[in-house]
């Protein structure tokens, strides 16, 4: 928790507050981008997906703005202790949010391609995975806003769920592709979407780790539980009759 008292130099507090506000704005934008990408995917709405792709540059612009604010603050204020962690954390969290924004745009791009292909059954399971990642991302941002290390640890643990669902989906997609080669095109797109969503979960846990460091000054102790076993998955093709 940041010390309750304010800096002797008040404009220092204003600079730090500005930094936090930029992160909150970036986070809000990325959340909305992800929500709209999922919506475009489940409704097969190419127009909405197109908007998501177009709007990604707004997050990139905010990231540049934040880097500028952070570098200026480092140069002019030479922050120490929790203030230094605040600036370094803002830089890290902003690049995680920027990556999440990129992945949301990627999901939207593939949603455009999918909208032109016949629907396949796993297309309904992918948005479920995406909503899970979305939930974790939202929790991570809340932990940042409220400087809540307990919530951060909770988010950090929950990414395991995303990994497990992702592994299941991976198997399912492979099976569909083997059943009918016409499924390969849409299922490959879905596979990449699922991978992007799984990466969003990883960036959300990065944010959670940063929040813990910001508040406590130490990394979260112990290794993170990992549920992504897709690297080891093998699905045998059905035997010819």
């Amino acid at each position: 928790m940041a010390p309750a008292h304010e800096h002797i130099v008040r404009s220092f507090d204003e600079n730090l507050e500005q930094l936090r506000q930029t992160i909150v704005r970036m986070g809000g934008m990325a959340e909305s981008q992800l929500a709209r990408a999922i919506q475009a995917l489940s409704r097969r709405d190419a127009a909405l997906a197109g908007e998501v792709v177009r709007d990604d540059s707004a997050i990139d612009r905010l990231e540049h703005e934040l880097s500028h604010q952070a570098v200026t603050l480092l140069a002019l204020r030479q922050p120490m202790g929790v203030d230094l962690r605040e600036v370094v954390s803002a830089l890290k969290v902003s690049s995680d949010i920027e990556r999440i924004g990129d992945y949301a745009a990627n999901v939207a791009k593939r949603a455009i391609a999918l909208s032109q292909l016949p629907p396949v059954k796993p297309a309904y399971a992918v948005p479920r995975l995406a909503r899970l990642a979305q939930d974790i991302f939202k929790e991570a941002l809340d932990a940042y806003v409220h400087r809540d290390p307990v919530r951060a640890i909770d988010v950090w643990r929950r990414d395991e769920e995303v990994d497990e669902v992702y592994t299941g989906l991976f198997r399912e997609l492979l099976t569909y592709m083997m059943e009918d080669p016409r499924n390969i095109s849409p299922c490959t797109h879905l596979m990449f979407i699922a991978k992007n969503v799984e990466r969003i979960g990883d960036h959300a846990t990065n944010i959670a780790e940063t929040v813990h460091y910001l508040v406590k000054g130490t990394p979260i102790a112990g290794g993170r539980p990992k549920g992504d076993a897709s690297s080891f998955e093998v699905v045998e093709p059905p035997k010819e009759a």
Partner: protein
Amino acid sequence: MEGLASAGQMAAMQAAAPDRPKIVARDINVYYGEKQALQHVDLDVIAHSVTALIGPSGCGKSTFLRCLNRMNDVIEGCRVVGDIRMDGQDIYDPKLDVVQLRARVGMVFQKPNPFPKSIYDNVAYGPRIHGLTRGKAEADAVVEGSLRRAGLWEEVKDRLSEAGTGLSGGQQQRLCIARAIAVSPEVILMDEPCSALDPIATARIEELIDELRANYTIVIVTHSMQQAARVSQKTAFFHLGILVETGDTEQIFTNPRDERTQGYITGRFG
């Protein structure tokens, strides 16, 4: 051969024990008349490192520094209670020669204070009165060596007979450092050595402090937290006569444990 081997063994011993304390201070209480300026201070000063003492004005950091070479002895009404040992030897032992102690524990002050003598005499004086040099050749060697170590030799070698007070502020401060190291001290105390200097002269002194660490143990009082962060390996934070927190400089400036340290280094009070 034997000499070489023992030097090697010494180096090996020093490498094996990098955190050997040079000075151990325990339960230090200092009073100016009725007023208590330091309360129950315990601090280890690690050999061949730079220890920075930081804290707001009147926190007791300079008082503590002056305990280390008994400069408080000369202040009327000042009383020091506690145990300070340098290499295990009690420096407040009544049998101890204070003049000898101050040769082993040199001091550099806030304002450069060269003697109103030539550059040469400023450096040669200490070794001569302590009987460390005999004759001109030995004195010349000590003067050159000390000025080189203080990073001043190249700038003054052609005008050693000129007055030390005619040098720039930064050069005067390096002259005072040369003067301090001329008597081969083990510890150098610095009381805000850069507060009267411009940023370039400050950078040169800081560079010098980092070099001197190889041969001396340094304790520095500074009001500049950036300076403490830049030059020291250990930092001790004093507040209202209490040693609040001490630790690796990196830890103190990135993740201080105590609320008061946090407040001070981040500029929230002081």
